[in-house]
């Protein structure tokens, strides 16, 4: 396989951006990534778009060429990838594979979602399409409800507390406060988080990530230079919750992480910092367990002691969660940290960073590791 590196990063602000449509957000991120890479559009050989529900949110389909042409990219393959909240993680994985196996030299991966033009109840309905609609959605399994049942079970099996869930939200809001691209730059207290409006018990409003608009893009290129991609692995699991033997586990995340560690010749202990998929506070606790940062069941206390920076960008909780943009945004943020360019939110030790992107309640999992230097 060829060496692959992130040679350009482009992001838009995340937020409720009333005056921006899906295409303008995606184009801005692509143009920023090309400018950052100092490459012309003509150098790009394929375009990969991660987007969960653009057709439902905006009424527009055929999104990959729709975006690509507006960004000056025509005459190349342009395809949309849909894997729920891991859509752009899956797009990145496909792009990385193509470059690593020598099919293309230089490609762009973009993730985008425009969510805030729909009323909240419709947003919830569209997001629920990422679950088992007929079997679980109809009885009332919204995504907060799915993760609430996971949280209840985790509390029951491991003694995880409400305070430990709230501590994740408090940390991520404090981190996001310093990120100029973040959607909700607001410091919250543990008392506020605990007293939040109930959404699906035991989760309150403060346990839930944000409904956001935004886009992120990266340029991937074969060879040396840029931020090397040390590993990228994608795995799958049941879409429905009742198909899983133990709902406190994310076996696809563990499998992707183990595959990525093997590929990079690293272990969990080598990771300096990580961007993980905190769609809900409990999801961050599950993520740090499945990534091997701590033993199963210890994610609550481990998160409170915070041995390494997790979600220094603010995570989905504070940075925002434009669903289809999240996977590439995480990778872009890890690359920025490794380049020492996270102005105002730079982590101290940023030699090796990990991005973990989750679709649904764990049915798609993508784990990507970037490093300052390629491992020998």
């Amino acid at each position: 396989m060829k060496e692959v590196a992130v040679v350009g990063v482009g992001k838009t602000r995340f937020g409720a951006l009333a005056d921006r449509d899906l295409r303008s957000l995606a184009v801005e991120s692509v143009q920023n990534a090309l400018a950052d890479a100092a490459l012309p559009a003509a150098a790009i050989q394929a375009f990969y778009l991660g987007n969960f529900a653009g057709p439902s949110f905006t009424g527009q389909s055929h999104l990959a060429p729709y975006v690509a042409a507006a960004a000056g990219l025509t005459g190349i393959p342009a395809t949309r990838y849909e894997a729920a909240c891991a859509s752009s993680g899956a797009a990145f994985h496909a792009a990385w594979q193509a470059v690593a196996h020598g099919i293309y030299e230089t490609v762009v991966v973009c993730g985008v979602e425009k969510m805030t033009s729909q009323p909240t109840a419709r947003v919830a309905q569209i997001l629920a399409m990422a679950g088992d609609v007929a079997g679980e959605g109809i009885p009332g399994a919204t995504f907060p409800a799915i993760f609430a049942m996971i949280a209840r079970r985790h509390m029951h099996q491991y003694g995880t507390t409400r305070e430990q869930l709230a501590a994740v939200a408090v940390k991520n809001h404090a981190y996001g406060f310093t990120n100029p691209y973040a959607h909700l730059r607001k410091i919250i207290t543990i008392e506020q988080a605990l007293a939040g409006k109930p959404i699906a018990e035991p989760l309150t409003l403060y346990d839930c990530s944000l409904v956001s608009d935004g886009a992120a893009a990266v340029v991937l290129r074969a060879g040396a230079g840029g931020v090397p991609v040390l590993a990228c692995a994608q795995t799958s699991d049941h879409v429905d919750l009742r198909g899983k033997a133990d709902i406190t586990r994310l076996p696809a995340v563990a499998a992707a992480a183990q595959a990525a560690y093997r590929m990079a010749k690293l272990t969990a202990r080598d990771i300096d910092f990580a961007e993980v998929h905190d769609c809900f506070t409990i999801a961050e606790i599950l993520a740090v367990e499945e990534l091997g940062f701590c033993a199963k069941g210890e994610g609550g206390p481990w998160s409170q002691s915070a041995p390494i920076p997790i979600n220094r960008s603010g995570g989905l909780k504070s940075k925002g969660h434009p669903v289809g943009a999240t996977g590439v945004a995480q990778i872009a943020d890890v690359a920025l940290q490794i380049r020492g360019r996270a102005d105002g939110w730079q982590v101290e030790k940023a030699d090796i960073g990990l991005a973990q992107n989750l679709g649904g309640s764990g049915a798609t999992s993508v784990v990507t590791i970037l490093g300052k230097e390629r491992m020998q």
Partner: protein
Amino acid sequence: MTVYSETLVWSPPAELAAIAPYQLLLIDQDNGPRLVGRAAPGERLAIGDTVTLDAVVDGVNLFRKTT
């Protein structure tokens, strides 16, 4: 059958707004696959509670605590 996990949902999808808050359940059967359903009206269940199927309404299983 026992309750494997549960949540009281305060922020319902539009179709279930009239019955919110409702309690969503994952139920372990003694023999057979795990079931999804809701607590029957007026019921509040906890993990480990033994339950029986009270009714199936519009294809949705409604459970009640076994007495």
